[in-house]
């Protein structure tokens, strides 16, 4: 998986592409940690538009930045979810946890 990041004002963005599964674990964690640890950043948006595949480990990984963001009082949201991503998120009822668009 590839992750591109950008920060504008207090908003940060992670644009992910490729397969989002357990192999993406390390790069995903390092990236969101760095963004959320930045004190200027108030929100983190995960853009899933280029994600070709995501499995249940990916869902598990999404919970980690969620927990960290909640603890730091920062906002986290998912955007541009593909239909596949939406389906996977819906089965797990993650729409109850995340702001998904």
């Amino acid at each position, binding site marked *: 998986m590839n992750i591109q990041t950008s920060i504008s004002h207090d908003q940060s963005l992670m644009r992910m592409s490729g397969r989002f599964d*357990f192999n993406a674990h390390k790069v995903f964690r390092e990236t969101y940690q760095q963004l959320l640890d930045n004190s200027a950043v108030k929100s983190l948006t995960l853009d899933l538009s280029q994600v070709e595949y995501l*499995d*249940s*480990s990916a*869902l*598990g*990984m999404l*919970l*980690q930045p969620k*927990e960290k963001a909640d603890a730091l009082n920062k906002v986290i949201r998912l955007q541009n979810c593909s239909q596949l991503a939406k389906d996977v998120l819906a*089965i*797990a*009822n*993650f729409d*109850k*946890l995340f702001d998904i668009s």
Partner: protein
Amino acid sequence: MRILAVDDTRANLVLLQAMLKRAGHEVVTAENGEQSLEVFEIEAPDLVLMDVMMPGMDGFEAAQRLQQMASPRWVPIIFISAAATEEYYIKGHQSGGADYLFKPINQVILNTKIEAIKRIVDMQNTLANQNKVLQEYVEKDEEERRISRHIMEHMAESKGLDDPLIKYMLSPAEQFSGDVLCAARSPSNRLYLLIGDAVGHGLAAAINTIPISGTFYPMVYKGFELPTIGRELNRRIKETMPTGCFVACGIVMVDPMESYVEVWNAGLPTFYCIDSFGNVMDTFESSQLPLGVLSGSQYEVESQIVPYMPGNQIVVFSDGLIEAENSEQEFFGVERLLSCLNHPENRMDDIKHALEEFLGDEKPHDDVTLALIDMPFQDQISSYAIEARSEQATPQAGIEETDDIQWQTSFHMGAEEIKNLDLTPMLLSVITQFKGVESHNQKLFLILSELLNNALDHGLLELDSSLKTGPDAFETYLNARHERLAAMTQGYIVISARKIRLHDELILRLTIEDSGKGFDHKKVLENAGESVQMHGRGIKLVQQLCRGMKYSETGSSVTVDYTLDHLV
């Protein structure tokens, strides 16, 4: 470095030794090929400087022998020769030499070559050390896996899955399964089946399933309700597992006696209820977050209740089944699964064959789990019913007063407690602590839960037992019950238990009294006789299990005597 210098000419050897010592090396020597092998074995040098032309075993042969001795380690050997020919140079390398030096030896070139070799030796040593660490790691890992597998296999109780109502398949993608399937019967003979799918697969996922079976079995055996079990499972997983480790989970509860089925799906693919022709009668979509995401206080279990329809079957499975991929990157999918259900007797085999055929040589990339739960016709289930029906068919004795009390206790449960607690298992867990009571757990569970249900339904909630007959009776009744229970703000139930000695019997006397206006208990008993499908037969069963039973005139209080033991 420790260097072995080999030369048959003593003067050359002395010269070489001096040069090496000057460069700070430790030197051992040999004066011919044979001797070089002995010294090599004893001194284990890092590098060998080998003269080529020696009487007996020449340098090339000695070099080859040394390499064989040291194998699989590679020994750096530098040949020294006066013959600076191409042929010698090639032969030197072919014999396993690392480099070639020509006489007379130049100190600077010698030092440079040794330095170059040292870098290779250092690299080789580092690699060897890493390899050793890695090898140890692999061995340790294998051993740990062996132990883990043993523990997991012995922890998973599979005997509950042998239930005649269940057919199942479990097929892990790796050595360990991240899917879990458990089944058990409650004291009132309800069947509970749990299916779980932990994030990922392999050992890490399998570990996530440990708290599940460890929580599920004891709670079912104690008779807790599905929502209570679900909440506790969520709490245990949330508390024990790191963030990101969650378990999609579902429970199907079949109660053939009370004629209903309760289904809960948190994060798994939709479950299906199908009739004997394979038509989909009901679907049970995932309505909630998987276990281990929300903390205990935030998690409410939302289950669905449907009537027990003999001949129907519930189909539950993990996503590994419908996402099994063939070589054309197609998923097995729900459509294919549902098309395998036309023959009720062969469904499991038909699904297995269809999956095998679909996959061809491919292997599923995730754990595949599937279970079918039967709803047999009534005449088939009578054999599973509590065997006590004929056992205590003694004529009903009256409730006789006595002062011979061995112990007694009572509980007052207010409206909030009645709403939020699973009263029967909770009270029973206290009562069964007393000596001689535990072995009657199953029958007492039935008695207590029936009496408590009557006190709640007819006493506090004032549900008319006539609601239980007629079309759609079941749903009407449950809906009314649900609404009134939610609205209840006052009222109480008092449960008293005492162990008494009466004539030659040890008796557990239970009195259940509610704050309701009372109800026509005679009618409840009559209805019980008529209805086969619906609620109410329970009270008849209580009568059969107990030595005596007496309702107060209004119906708001009932006392039963249960014989624990006969004194000889």
